[in-house]
Structures are given as C-alpha cells and as structure tokens.
C-alpha cells in the first residue's frame, strides 16, 4: 500500500470516529423521544472550550482532562434537557424541534458574547502531537487515539444498553413508549439520561476535534453537528450500530472525496456531504439499520 493511501485511511478513520461519537447522541435521543436535538452539535463546541480552558489553566493533570470533559458534557447535555426540553414535554413534535433549534442559536450566541468571535489556537500537550511512521506514512498519534477511544466508548455504551436496568429501559421505550410506561418506566428520567450521555460523547468529540484541527470558535459545532446527523440518517436514525457505521461511511467518503479527486473540487466537500444526504433519503430513507416506519391512519 502506498503511504498516501494509508494516510487517507487513517484520516477517514479519525474523522469517521468523530462523526460517530456525535451521531450516537442523535440516535440515543431520537430512540427515546423521537426528537432530533438540534443543539447537539453545540455540545461539541462546549467540549472543545472546556478542553481549552482546562489545558490553559493547567490546574489538572492532562490525563484527567478527558474525564472532566466527559462529565462536563454530561451535565451540559442534561442541562439542555432540563432547561429547554423538559418544559415542553408532551407538546407536538414540531414544537420540540423549534425549541432545540432555539436552544442551539442561544448557546452559539451566548458563546459569542462570553468567549468572543475570534477563533483561538489550541494545542494538545506535546505527548499527543507525536507523529508515528506506519508503513512509510507519517501518521499523527491523535488520529490513532481517536478511533481507539471511540471504539472503547461504543463498547461501553453497548454494554450499558444491553446489561444495565437503565439500558434495558431505554430499549423498552424505544420499542414502545406507551407499553414501557405501563411497565413502570419513568420516561422523564430516561430522557435526561440520553441527553446527558449523548452530551458527554459529543463533548469528548469536541476535545478531539479541537486537538485535531488546532482551532476553536463558538460556531464550530454547527457544521460537524449537522454532518453527524447526516451520518445518523445514513445508518438509520435511532439505531446505535447505525450511528457508528454511518459515521465511518460519511468520514471515509468525505476523505475520499477530498483526497482522491483533483484539488479544485475539495472546496465542495460540504456540498458533497449534503448531496449524499439527499441521495440516501431518496434511495433508502430509513437508513442502513433503521426500520421503515409504517404510515397508519
């Protein structure tokens, strides 16, 4: 294999992992309340700024930073649910949707007010900026750490969903919310839980994103969030394996688009992603792992 190919594969893996981390949250939340949380992408931004603050303040050892960011994302995701979503539970879907859209706009602009609109440069500690030679290619360590951690998170989450009481309750609600409530499952607490867990993973993605691209700004979460939702749709909204596979499909195709076409096309990469979305919605709207929803009278 040529080193260029290896380089592109590693890039695809790492970008795909980031999409997968964000997409998992979309799918979790959608599974429980059939709602797309538009503010989800902004949790990535929140995670990035938390990392920035923690690294800059130099208060905690660097190994503790990912854990703190996970915890912070957990709280932030839960907070969005408590403040914006809890109050309108029971309202029609479109209301919930508008509320999460408003929450997203509010978060972005609050960040603009308090953090300023100038992009900030950001660097990981020296350890993570190492580059490793693999098969002739010069690969950044971070691009290998990202897929490894994503895999770990996916495994942990799968165990959580399969084995724990809360996980079983989440699956029950996803299957049939009404019957689940009859069995004594409190949906309200589960909604908080999925927003929080999704938030934690998105914040972690934000940590990696800032380390990988080296620059953060208050609006950085919007486009990755939207693309991660495209990944969710590719995999099938509501399906966890779907979110992960969708993330990697999108990551690899985006990298392939940029890496293997003439460079003058690379400016169109965002257009390509959303063109892909429209194609998927045409051919298989329920996604790879999703089930087609029957229309009933």
């Amino acid at each position, binding site marked *: 294999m040529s080193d260029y190919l290896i380089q592109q594969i590693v890039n695809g893996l790492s970008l795909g992992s980031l999409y997968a981390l964000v997409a998992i949250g979309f799918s979790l939340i959608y599974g429980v309340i059939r*709602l*797309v949380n538009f503010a989800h992408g902004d949790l990535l931004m929140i995670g990035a700024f938390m990392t920035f603050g923690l690294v800059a303040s130099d208060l905690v050892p660097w190994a503790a930073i990912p854990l703190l960011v996970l915890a912070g994302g957990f709280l932030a995701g839960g907070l969005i649910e408590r403040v*914006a979503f809890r*109050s*309108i539970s029971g*309202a*029609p*879907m*479109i*209301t919930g*949707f*508008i*509320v999460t*859209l*408003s*929450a997203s*706009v*509010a978060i*972005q*602009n*609050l960040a*603009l*007010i308090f953090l300023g*609109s100038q992009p900030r440069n950001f660097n990981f500690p020296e350890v993570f900026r190492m580059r490793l030679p693999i098969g002739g290619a010069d690969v950044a360590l971070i691009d290998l750490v990202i897929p490894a951690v994503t895999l770990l998170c996916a495994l942990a989450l799968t165990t959580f969903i399969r084995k724990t009481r809360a996980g079983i309750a989440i699956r029950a609600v996803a299957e049939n919310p009404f019957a689940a409530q009859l069995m004594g499952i409190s949906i309200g607490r589960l909604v908080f839980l999925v927003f929080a867990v999704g938030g934690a993973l998105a914040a972690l993605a934000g940590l990696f994103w800032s380390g990988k691209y080296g620059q953060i700004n208050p609006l950085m979460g*919007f*486009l990755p969030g*939207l693309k991660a*939702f*495209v990944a969710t*749709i590719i995999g099938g*909204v509501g399906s966890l394996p779907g979110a992960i596979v969708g993330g990697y499909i999108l990551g690899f195709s985006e990298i392939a688009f940029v890496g293997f076409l003439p460079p003058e096309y690379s*400016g*169109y990469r*965002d*257009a390509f*992603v*959303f*063109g892909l*979305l*429209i194609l998927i*919605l*045409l051919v298989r*709207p329920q996604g790879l792992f999703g089930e087609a929803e029957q*229309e009933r*009278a």
Partner: protein
Amino acid sequence: MKIPALSPLQAFFLLVAVMAGLVLAVTASGNGYFQTFAALTLINVMLAVSLTMTNGFTGMFSLGHPAFMTLGAYVTILFTYPVGRKGFAMPALPEIIAQIHLPLPVAALVGGLFAALTGWLIGRLVVHLQTHYLAVATLGLIIVVQTFALNLDGLTRGGRGITGVPREATLSLIGVCTVLVIVLCWRIKHASLGRAMLAVRENEMAARCFGIEAFRVKLLAFILGAGIAGFCGALLPHVVSVMSPKSFGLILAFNLIAIIVVGGQGSIMGAILAAVFISVGSESLRRVEESTGVYGVTQVIVAVALISFLLVRPKGLFGLKEPFIRTS
C-alpha cells in the same frame, strides 16, 4: 368596544392605503436610514408571508428560504450589475449574458423563476420527508448553495462578495411587491388550493382519501415559497448594495421560523405583524449591541423569547385565524 370585522376587499384597500402612506411618508422624510430599514422590514414581511404558506399551510418544516434567496440574488445580479464592470467582476460570465442589462423588476423575476425552478427540482426529492428530515435536507441545501457561491468565484467573486450592486430597489417598488405577495398568499389560502394545503397539514392521509394529491400540493407550496424567497433575495442586495455567500444563512432561517411561529403558522396577518414586530425589535437591539460592543445579545433574546412564547402560546398569536377580517 368590539373592533368591527372588515370584508376582504375593505382590508385590501386598507392595506394599499397603509402601504402607500408608509412609502410616501418614509420617502418624503429623505432619511436614508429609515428608507433602508423600511425596505428591509417589508422584505421580511414578504419572506414571512411566503414561509407561512410553505410551512404553515402545509405543515412542512422547510428551512430552505435563505438558500433560494441566495440563488435569486446571484442570478439577478448577473443581469443588473453595470455592464461595463461585469468583465472585471465576473470573468466567467458568458459573453451573451454579459451584454444584457435588465431593469431590476424584470431581473428579479428571472431570479425568482430560477429559484422556483430549483425549488421544483429539489422539492420533488424532499417534500415527502418527515419534519426532521426535511429540516436537515433544507439546511443542507443552504450549505450546498453557499458552498457553490463561495467556489464559483468567476460569477460570484467568492468570499470577497460583490460590492457596488446598484441600489435600484426603491421603497415604492418593494411596497408594490409586498402588497402583491400578501394578496397572492391570501388568495391561495382561501381558494381550493389553500384548503387542500390546510387539509394536508391537519391529516395527510385523510386528505389523500378525499382525493387531494398531497405530494403535488406540498410541492406547489414549496415551489411558490422558493420563488417568492428568490425574488426577495433578488431585491435585498439592491437595497444594501452588497452580496456575499454568507449573506443569507442559518440565522435568517431561524429568525423567519421565529416570525411564523410567533404569528401562528398559517396566519398571514400574524406573519405580517410578527415580521414587523421582530424587525423593529431586533433593529433596536442591534443598535444597543453596536453601542455596547456586545454582539449576539439580539439572537439570544430572540431564541429565549421564542421558547417562552411557545410555552405560553404554542399556537402562536393567531393560530390559523385572520383576525379583524371576515373570511367566510
């Protein structure tokens, strides 16, 4: 005291009279700031009324207006930009078009038609989608259009933006267009087409059982909305004289949604009042932002106000109703 309800014809004359009075008064004032602000407010009214048709009447959730506005704006500028400067600003423009100069109303119609045509192409693919999917697909459309506008810099000057667009959009032209758009949407709402749209919104399957071709009705609403949005987008740079790929984006889409939600998704009167209210409100807040140097406050206030409004009055100000006017 009960306000007497007007007949639609009386309401039309009142609308024309108010509009004429507004246009004459603001033009006579000779104050450039007021003229620009009035023009932008009226364009917001047109956008809100058309979006209340596309989304409110049919129950769809499109965020695509800014995409169609961008398309309409760039296509129109190709025909209104001073011929002598086209070769320098838009080197990729074919010679035939470079020679043509159209007056703004005609060029804006061309822009609107182009947006409507795009709306037809895209709408055929997306109008059957459920709420979230349609929202994301149309948001994606904004990004696709912006990406093309950014990259086709032989026609659009890319990220540098086009400056020196002739300020040909007079307030009277915009006033006439606003009246026309309001009348058009009003007539649609109270004709069989509008009733079909409302039936689709209430229960698509039931509507289909009554023989309404839901897909066609939604597509038509989408195309009409796209056309009007394209037309408004065409007028806007001719008010402010600049156009860039980021001129119309997510924030605009969100503000338009806020306007029609506050107005009551489906109420034309509600859309007009909410558009005026939010335009005036955010303009005054913007001046506060500029004097204090704290940017972003306006958007936060709009977002928080929208959430609180949804809590108190989920159906918006008027729901589907048109207050003060007898409709049956």
